[in-house]
């Protein structure tokens, strides 16, 4: 007859009445919640992937492009600096060689071998150029006749020296840097002049390396850049900032020979990546090297990279948060809509069930009514025959039998009338309804249970209630559900009170109070929600009271509940006395 509903209370013995909805619904709702979780996961994943992928790809591409452009800019920059510096170093040497060349061409061996003249030339050289320390003239036998300078080198024989051999081949010779007697690093430049008689002489000079060091130190190199000269054996020819002092071995690998400027990446002694630019200075034992920390060069790029990564992280966070938020909200809406749909579906099923039961009842009642009428008339006729004739008039036993038949027929017809009334009430037209009669009819269905469980049902109806115009079938269902709920709440021997009275000129109130187990405040607030039940293990699906709520709303009324754990529960239903008058919220 009714659906075991929400309510905080529903014993197992009531489960049979609602079994028509239970199994499939439970499966449906369980499966449904799984689907929603999956839907949430899929939607969130898909949305995140679709929105994040292009962003990540674009950012990665941009990252690579920017990184490459930064790297190529570093290479270009280093190449330019190395080339310019090479030109400067080369020029500084060429300038001095040219000066020496001019001297050997402008003066004969005899003129130069005059030490006073040589002193004069050295003074002029020193006033025009920086770096010249001394001058010496060596004849083709390797003997230095005349020497002017701070060292005592007059009369030194160079014939066994390697450089003496070399200068005869190359005409111009530039030596490696060496500390010399005063421990001032310097290098030797020697220029050969061939004489018409086939002999030759050599003009030799020492040049302070400070000259080149100053040139390199004045270079503006970004970051902690280091510019220095190194010879082919890897001995530093000028001081460096962080790769050793002059004449110390270089802590990096000597770049292999190349005629043009090379820029390459290597790692320093500490393992940090370095950008090295190098070039061999032609006709000298010198290699120009400019070394820089890669991290220092990439510093501007690091800032860009930080911005790109920061942008990516912030964008990803926003996308993820928004996606999850939107997906959660959407799925919540779907869950809500679906619950509404399932609840509506069940209400429709419930209404259909009631109508089917009504039709079935009416059919049975109608079919039984005719034979019942015949039995009644035949028995009545027997009684008439006994009463109106005199043959059996005094037989009390026969009269008793006939009365018993008539009594049974009356009981049967009471049942069929109730069934017919029930069927009639499933129609939807509002009709005048006597509330007292309706309550009595509904209680008629519960009479046996009340009796078995010794439940006391007290009905109190004010005299001024009268009739209300409403849908009797729905009113019956409402009362049946609420009273059923009360029966479920009370323990055996409990008490249920039903009170009906007028609330105002256009509303009547129906109050159903039980002294059962009651509900907590949290349960009370959710009691009309579809699928809210505290008795799912006993077969409740939580639709009874939500259906009741809709039925009351359909009739333009309101339903409220008041409950206290251990004390009991009261349902208050307010109904308009006619379909036109609006229900006011009594909650």
């Amino acid at each position, binding site marked *: 007859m009714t659906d075991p509903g929400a309510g905080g209370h529903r014993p197992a013995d009531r489960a049979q009445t609602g079994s028509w909805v239970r199994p499939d619904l439970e499966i449906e709702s369980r499966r449904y919640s799984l689907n929603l979780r999956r839907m949430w996961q899929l939607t969130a994943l898909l949305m995140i992937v679709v929105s994040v992928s292009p962003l990540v790809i674009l950012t990665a591409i941009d990252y690579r492009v920017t990184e490459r452009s930064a790297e190529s800019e570093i290479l270009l920059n280093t190449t330019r600096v190395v080339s310019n510096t090479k030109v400067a170093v080369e020029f500084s040497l060429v300038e001095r060689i040219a000066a020496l060349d001019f001297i050997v061409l402008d003066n004969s061996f005899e003129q130069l071998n005059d030490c006073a003249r040589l002193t004069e030339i050295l003074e002029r050289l020193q006033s025009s150029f920086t770096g010249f320390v001394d001058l010496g003239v060596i004849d083709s036998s390797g003997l230095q006749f005349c020497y002017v300078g701070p060292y005592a080198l007059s009369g030194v024989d160079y014939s066994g020296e390697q450089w003496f051999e070399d200068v005869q081949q190359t005409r111009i010779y530039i030596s490696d840097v060496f500390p010399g007697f005063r421990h001032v690093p310097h290098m030797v430049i020697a220029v050969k002049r061939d004489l018409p008689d086939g002999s030759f002489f050599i003009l030799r000079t020492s040049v302070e390396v400070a000259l080149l060091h100053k040139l390199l130190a004045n270079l503006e190199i970004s970051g902690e850049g280091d510019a220095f000269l190194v010879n082919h054996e890897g001995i530093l020819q000028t001081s460096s900032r962080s790769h050793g002092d002059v004449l110390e071995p270089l802590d990096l690998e000597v770049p292999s020979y190349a005629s043009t400027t090379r820029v390459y990446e290597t790692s320093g002694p500490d393992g940090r990546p370095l950008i090295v630019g190098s070039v061999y200075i032609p006709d000298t034992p010198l290699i120009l090297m400019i070394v820089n920390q890669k991290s220092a060069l990439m510093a501007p790029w690091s800032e860009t990279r930080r911005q790109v990564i920061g942008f990516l992280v912030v964008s990803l966070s926003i996308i993820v948060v928004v996606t999850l938020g939107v997906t959660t909200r959407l799925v919540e809406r779907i869950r809500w809509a679906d619950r509404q749909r399932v609840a509506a579906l069940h209400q429709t099923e419930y209404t259909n069930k009631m109508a089917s039961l009504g039709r079935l009842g009416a059919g049975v009642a109608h079919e039984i*009514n*005719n034979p019942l*009428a015949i039995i009644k*008339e035949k028995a009545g006729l027997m009684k008439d025959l006994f009463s109106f004739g005199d043959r059996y008039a005094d037989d009390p036993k026969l009269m008793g039998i006939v009365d018993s038949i008539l009594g049974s*027929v009356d009981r049967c017809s009471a049942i069929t009338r109730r069934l*017919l009334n029930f069927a009639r009430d499933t*129609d939807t037209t509002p009709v005048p309804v006597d509330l007292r009669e309706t309550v009595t009819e509904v209680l008629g269905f519960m009479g046996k249970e009340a009796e078995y469980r010794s439940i006391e049902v007290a009905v109190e109806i004010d005299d001024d209630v009268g009739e209300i115009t409403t849908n009797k079938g729905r009113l019956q269902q409402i009362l049946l559900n609420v009273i059923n709920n009360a029966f479920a709440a009370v323990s055996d021997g409990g008490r249920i009170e039903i009170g009906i009275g007028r609330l105002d000129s256009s509303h009547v109130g129906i109050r159903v109070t039980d002294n059962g187990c009651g509900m907590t405040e949290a349960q009370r607030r959710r009691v009309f929600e579809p699928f809210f039940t505290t008795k799912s293990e006993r077969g409740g699906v939580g639709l009874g009271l939500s259906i009741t709520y809709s039925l009351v709303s359909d009739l333009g009324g309101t339903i409220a509940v008041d409950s206290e754990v251990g004390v009991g529960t009261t349902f208050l239903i307010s109904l308009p006395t006619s379909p036109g008058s609006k229900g006011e919220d009594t909650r």
Partner: protein
Amino acid sequence: MKVLLVDDEQELVSTLAERLGFRGVDVRWTTTGQEAVAMVGRERFDVAVLDVKMPRQSGIQLKKEIESVQPEMKFIFVTGHGSEEDFRVGSAEADRYLAKPLDIEALVRALKEVVAT
């Protein structure tokens, strides 16, 4: 008071007629509307007690045919089906509406009241 009983259940209508006879009511009965119309053509009745639901012809149709022959006749409808529609039509069309199974004393009372008005 002369009464015409029409009901498709012969067992019911014949017994009812006999019982009414015991109570001094002059009753004719039949199980078909056709015969009922024929009877109305032959003799005059004060009241017709008609079953609302009968095969081939409903009590309401039969009432219209009888009224065309004897316009001053009164009607009581009897039905085993208490639907809303039956109730509405029955109450509107007839002078009295009674549900099966009938209470014989209530029927006699209704007949007397209907004839008296």
